[in-house]
């Protein structure tokens, strides 16, 4: 009996541990996540298109530390994708780096201006030296998300 009680206690503790709070959902979170493309496959899915609507699931590697107004997702092969939020309409938790997120919206390839690159570097907590070293615009893979669901 004593052993059963102990087992029941451990089981319930493990179960309550598994019920960890997710970081929540943001923007328009009413989208289907079942067929989300793995982030490592997203560039293949984009192909030669300059932009494409898709649902992508991946790991968040960094988040804007000023407002949570952008985040980066790991695409594999040392590549990352910057995710902005549609119409600057919502932000994500500033401590969501390391979390898994499913995002719905438009993936694109675009040129980022020097001013925006400097802004992103400032938001990421880069040093003034690193910010001053940004002198050329950059072609980046980016994503405009209308909704984000953290798992």
């Amino acid at each position, binding site marked *: 009996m004593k052993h059963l009680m102990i087992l029941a*206690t451990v089981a319930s503790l493990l179960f309550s541990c598994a019920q960890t709070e997710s970081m929540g959902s943001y923007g328009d979170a009413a989208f289907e996540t079942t067929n989300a493309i793995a982030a490592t496959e997203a560039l293949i899915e984009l192909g030669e298109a300059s932009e494409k609507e898709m649902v992508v699931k991946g790991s968040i590697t960094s988040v804007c530390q000023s407002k949570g107004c952008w985040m980066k997702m790991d695409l594999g092969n040392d590549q990352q994708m910057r995710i902005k939020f549609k119409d600057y309409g919502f932000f994500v938790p500033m401590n969501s780096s390391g979390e898994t997120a499913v995002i719905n919206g438009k993936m694109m390839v675009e040129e980022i201006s020097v001013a925006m690159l400097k802004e992103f570097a400032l938001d990421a907590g880069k040093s003034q030296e690193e910010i001053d070293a940004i002198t050329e615009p950059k072609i980046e893979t980016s994503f405009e998300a209308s909704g984000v669901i953290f798992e």
Partner: protein
Amino acid sequence: MKKLLILALLSTFVIACKQSKKKPEMYEKSAMSVHMRQMVDFSYQAKADLKDGKEIEVPEFLLNLKDKEATRDQQDDAEFQAYADVYLSHLKNINSGDSSQAYYLDKSIEACESCHMNFCGGPLVVIEELKSF
């Protein structure tokens, strides 16, 4: 000994449980951020009113831009203050009541765009939408 081991195991699980429950840390809107959302709301309404042939008036509180605290204290930057002065001069011209209210409203939105090309580029998409409204 067995009881101590079970207690140690249970303690480990409880501690691990507490550490895995991360609470979302959300941005708390700065006074400047709130004020600028109000500037956008005013501009949309003003554009709609002008299209309906109505006269517009800039509310007094919108003129208190320069003392609002921004996320990264941009309000203390001399360059920001200069952009703010341009924006505010256009708002005051709107209130002068002559026939060029639409002109000065458009100029005030352009002033927003100019500033945001240098400070906080995120809202540029909002300004683009406003310009095409």
